[in-house]
């Protein structure tokens, strides 16, 4: 993954410490995540076969990943046969160059975009800007983020960290054609964005999209969205360029049935998705290009435990139930993939050489709520623990954990340590020094008892 996205510098704990102090952010996040959480739970509970659907989703994805090479070639063949052009991109730089060259070949300097995680991952907008091409986001929340010169904070609801008063300010400030007297009523804000975008849709000759799914047997791409803006992007322009991660594949058209049930219920808490668009090759004379993006995915695929992260269908159910995400928002994760899935996907795609990426596997209390709601049963806690074993550890921590392991590995040593603690308990200060001060800053320490259980047992048991 390219290092273009830098929501915040530093590491997760530092970013998070700043975020939890922002009361407006905390309020916005809590309200939004709890609302979506409740809606999701209600529509999932309606389905008597949810567990079977979840197992089916997992099985289809696993089968696809197991034979990814074969299905990708099948997809390429089908897309080409339907008049589309397939490009392979090893990394972000390659993908960005392919897209920029394709846009330049049309002679255009503006493109409209359907919300796409893959293009954010590779920093496409910035790369296009460097080539003199302006990319306009058309998803309402993406538009808010783009106008606000901000970063997305959520996979599905990129502007989750903003309330409507803030959105009104952004529109009045940055959207040239915002109506005077714009109120912060959601309908008024949506109408202002609609008028602003309409002009853009009608003018644009080139569009860039991602895809939620690609179907190997037919070469069909599928986009799910809620506003219809995506459909305008997909159908109106003369050239359509789709940048899609290679893991987004499904073997057959029939497999889509499972995911069209899993995704809307998990993401927006809806029974059915409002706008589902599918296209195969160069439909109705439109010039179509598919850029298949690796950008670290084959490395993830090679990892036995971590590869399950590639099952992810970007529903963001894990973000909406995560107690850590709920209090920090997405920016603290410093990646386009925040929350629990981001904590396992980002360090796998980018590696753990930066301080930020090495801290991400620890951005979880391992409470397991993410695994419980994941529609494709990604065992996120399992992957987090596995990544922690691979993450670099500081020398002091390593030494401390070694000593603790040595003491705990032998009952006599444990008993001696307990006796020492009991003897010295009057000396334990109310505020502990070093990293342990993190505990005593906000919590009282438990009293050290005058006798351990094993001593009591020895005496009385």
């Amino acid at each position, binding site marked *: 993954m390219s290092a273009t996205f830098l929501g915040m510098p530093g590491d997760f704990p530092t970013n998070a410490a700043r975020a939890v102090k922002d009361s407006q952010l905390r309020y916005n996040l809590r309200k939004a995540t709890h609302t979506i959480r409740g809606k999701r739970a209600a529509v999932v509970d309606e389905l008597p076969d949810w567990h079977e659907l979840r197992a089916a989703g997992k099985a289809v994805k696993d089968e696809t990943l197991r034979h990814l090479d074969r299905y990708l070639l099948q997809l390429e063949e089908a897309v080409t046969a339907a008049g589309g052009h397939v490009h392979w991109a090893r990394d972000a730089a390659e993908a960005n160059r392919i897209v920029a060259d394709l846009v330049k070949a049309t002679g255009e300097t503006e493109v409209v975009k359907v919300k796409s995680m893959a293009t954010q991952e590779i920093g496409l907008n910035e790369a296009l800007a460097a080539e003199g091409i302006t990319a306009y986001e058309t998803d309402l929340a993406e538009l808010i983020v783009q106008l606000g010169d901000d970063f997305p904070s959520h996979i599905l609801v990129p502007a989750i960290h903003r309330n409507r008063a803030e959105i009104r300010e952004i529109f009045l400030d940055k959207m040239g054609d915002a109506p005077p007297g714009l109120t912060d009523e959601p309908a008024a804000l949506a109408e202002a964005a609609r008028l602003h975008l309409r002009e853009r849709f009608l003018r644009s000759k080139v569009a860039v999209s991602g895809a939620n799914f690609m179907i190997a047997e037919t070469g069909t791409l599928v986009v799910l969205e809620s506003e219809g803006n995506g459909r305008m992007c997909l159908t109106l322009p003369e050239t359509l360029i789709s940048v899609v991660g290679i893991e987004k594949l499904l073997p057959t058209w029939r497999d889509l049935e499972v995911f069209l049930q899993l995704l809307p219920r998990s993401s927006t808490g809806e029974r059915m998705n409002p706008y589902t668009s599918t296209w195969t090759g160069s439909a109705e004379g439109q010039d179509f290009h598919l850029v298949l993006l690796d950008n670290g995915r084959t490395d993830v695929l090679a990892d036995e435990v971590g590869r399950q992260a590639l099952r992810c269908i970007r529903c963001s159910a894990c973000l909406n139930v995560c107690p850590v995400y709920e209090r920090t928002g997405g920016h603290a994760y410093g990646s386009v993939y925040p929350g629990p899935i981001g904590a396992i996907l980002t360090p796998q795609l980018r590696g753990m050489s930066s301080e930020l990426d090495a801290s991400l596997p620890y951005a979880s209390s391992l409470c397991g709520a993410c695994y419980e709601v994941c529609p494709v049963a990604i065992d996120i806690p399992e992957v987090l623990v596995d990544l922690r074993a691979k993450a670099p550890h500081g020398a002091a921590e390593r030494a401390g954990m070694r000593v603790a392991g040595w003491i705990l590995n032998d009952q006599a040593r444990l008993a001696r340590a307990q006796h020492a603690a009991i003897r010295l308990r009057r000396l334990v200060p109310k505020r502990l020094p070093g990293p342990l001060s993190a505990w005593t*800053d906000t919590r009282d320490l438990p009293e050290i008892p005058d006798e351990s259980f094993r001593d009591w047992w020895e005496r009385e048991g």
Partner: protein
Amino acid sequence: MRVALFITCVNDTLFPGTGKAVVSLLRRLGCDVDFPAAQTCCGQMHVNTGYRDEGVRLARHFTEVFAGYDAVVAPSGSCAAMVREQYPKLVRPGSRGATAIAEVAPRVHELSEFLVDVLKVEDVGAYFPHRVTYHPTCHSLRGLHLGDRPTRLLQQVRGLELVPLPGAQECCGFGGTFAVKNPAVSAAMGADKARNVLDTGAEVLCAADNSCLMHIGGTLSRQQTGIRVMHLAEILAATDGGTRS
């Protein structure tokens, strides 16, 4: 029934009262209890912090100490979940370690599971005339799937008024070393949990894990709320003769 106690290193060192309560409760219910003295720690802290090798050594020690017992009872949902859910993932399938774990792990029970599923009792003859709220800790809830076993036991305690905890299923923010590695988020989660506990008007917060109680209790104590935290075993061991633990 002869039962081996796995008291856990945290309880052994910091919360011996929980261990004593388990002993008195199980003896009252007719169990012959044994505390294998060679036991130390399940290794959860090491594994979950990224020190797998040390964790695996502790796991091996655990399986050796508890091999041969019909039932092992632990007053900790978290440590019981470590043995049952995480141990099998630490070893190569088909290896000798995997066989040893497969022998021991299913016989390890969290206290409320042991009472309800093995001893088949819900009324343990306890008396505790206080207003209590229950926090189902994450590993009890989503690791062991304890469900309503603990609250069914509490509901049978004479004099006890059980009040529901808002947002009960949300993590308290302890998370082992998470509390030290991500202190700001951990404290924020703990503060929200403490506020929910306060909202119930309960005198006592109960849970099946002392580590979570240590975190929430430390927060409640720092805020001088006057709310006590007690392990499930301590409440179930209490009789009208006193808690005697």
